[in-house]
């Protein structure tokens, strides 16, 4: 485990477009993660992501400003179509990025075999949540950092860091998935497409909204998955954030429509040996990127100087306009 003092904690920020990357760099990101314009990454949304030439320019810009670039190639190659994923790794290596974020064992083997100098990070999509699993990835592929799934408490993260030799990165802000990252088939069940294989959860082409008596009605595929009364915050159109009736109880049976905000836990995560803090939201705007990166850089600065972590002002950009510390505190049932 590499002890962290807070001063060497990294802030890893999302960018869905080249201007968002520049905003993240300018706002003080230590590293920016982004993806190519195809299903090799888990934010394969219309109008989003980087062409090869975009990525080359983005890497140049980031490196000129002392910021690292990680490329997410974190979906699982389809049988018979692995060339697309291999080409993404080839191109990332050719662009001299600082790391690639991978989830699939076969792709990790490809990257480790063809590019031994390419730094490998294990994606949250791999769902490696215990020391044995993490040690396998380190020993087999030389993984240098693991992005931990959002199922662990701070104490469990500390235990993991005490038992492994690589760095860990944890999410501190943004949308939450159901607690089985890389293994969720809810979107696939309804639409035939999933974040794991196609890079899209609840693809926009399958989403419909309409208003009925002031309520916002959300449909996914052939199902109505939510009906939100006027004046209440809306949620993403995913099954996990939908509201359903079961056993005469109506409500969100999978997850509340709420964002993760673990800014107050940064000192505890630091003491738990975490190396890097990750912000979710490659699908979000430049305005979101600027607001969140600025807030978390201020939090890191405050911690490094011994000051109190500043109060979060990010509720406005949060799903459901409310926040949770998620599994880190495990205050739910």
């Amino acid at each position: 485990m590499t002890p962290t003092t807070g001063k060497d904690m990294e802030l890893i920020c999302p960018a869905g477009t080249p201007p968002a990357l520049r905003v993240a760099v300018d706002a003080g990101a230590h590293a920016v993660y982004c993806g190519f314009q195809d299903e090799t990454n888990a934010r394969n949304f219309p109008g989003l992501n980087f062409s090869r030439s975009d990525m080359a320019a983005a890497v140049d810009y980031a490196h000129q400003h002392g910021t690292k670039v990680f490329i997410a190639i974190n979906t699982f190659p389809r049988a018979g179509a692995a060339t697309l994923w291999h080409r993404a790794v080839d191109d990332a290596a050719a662009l001299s990025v600082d790391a690639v974020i991978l989830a699939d064992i076969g792709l990790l083997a490809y990257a480790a075999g063809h590019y031994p100098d390419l730094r490998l990070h294990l994606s949250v999509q791999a769902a490696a949540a215990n020391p044995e699993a993490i040690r396998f990835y380190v020993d087999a592929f030389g993984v240098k950092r693991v992005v931990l799934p959002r199922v662990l408490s701070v104490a469990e993260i500390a235990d993991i860091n005490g038992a492994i030799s690589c760095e860990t990165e944890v999410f501190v802000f943004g949308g939450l998935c159901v607690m089985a990252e890389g293994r969720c088939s809810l979107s696939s069940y309804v639409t035939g497409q999933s974040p794991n294989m196609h890079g899209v959860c609840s693809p926009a082409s399958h989403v419909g909204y309409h208003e009925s008596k002031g309520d916002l009605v959300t449909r996914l595929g052939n199902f109505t998955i939510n009906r939100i009364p006027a004046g209440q915050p809306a949620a993403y159109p995913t099954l996990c954030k939908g509201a359903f009736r079961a056993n005469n109880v109506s409500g969100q049976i999978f997850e509340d429509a709420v964002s993760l905000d673990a800014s107050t836990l940064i000192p505890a995560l630091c003491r738990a040996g975490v190396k890097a803090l990750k912000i979710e939201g490659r699908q979000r705007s430049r305005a979101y990127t600027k607001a969140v990166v600025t807030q978390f850089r201020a939090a890191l600065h405050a911690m490094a100087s011994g000051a109190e972590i500043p109060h979060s002002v990010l509720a406005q950009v949060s799903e459901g306009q409310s926040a949770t510390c998620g599994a880190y505190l495990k205050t739910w049932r």
Partner: protein
Amino acid sequence: MFTLSFRHDFRVPDFVSSALRPLPLLPLEIFLQQLASSIVARHPDILERIGRTDRLRFGIDPSDVPFAVEIELHHSVVGLRVLRSFDERLLHARITGTLAALIGLVDGEADGDALFFSREIVVTGDIAAVLALRNAVDAAEIKLLSEALALVRLWISQPGKLLRGLLADEPRRGYATDNERTQP
């Protein structure tokens, strides 16, 4: 360089909206058509990012002013109409919100998801098209006030440009003819 920066929760007062109601729409349509064309000419990457070659017709519906805008994208051409109300059947997608919220989205000052969560904007229709448009516009780094002022300066220095817009069918250049205006 001017930047447009104001609160996206600002709402045009009712008395202002009422005062705008009797005004003719054609001058605004000419202005917005030329503004849209110049923005697309300056930012061709918008259409590349949207990545659709089929004809797309968006209804932009500022809820606090007495007019709405239909924008039609087809290949590299943008057409625009200013209307009192939409024929919903002719739209692929509709985006409704206050004028300030919609300008904030174009100008990169507001976050589309946040406006959706807070119910400040409502989107209906082809959500994939809306998402592509939103992401493409955000990536274009448009400074709307600067673009508008540049157009005004052009009109002042080249009044013929304005005249052509008034005399010709310039406002609807590139727009589908009425025969082509089929339902999506």
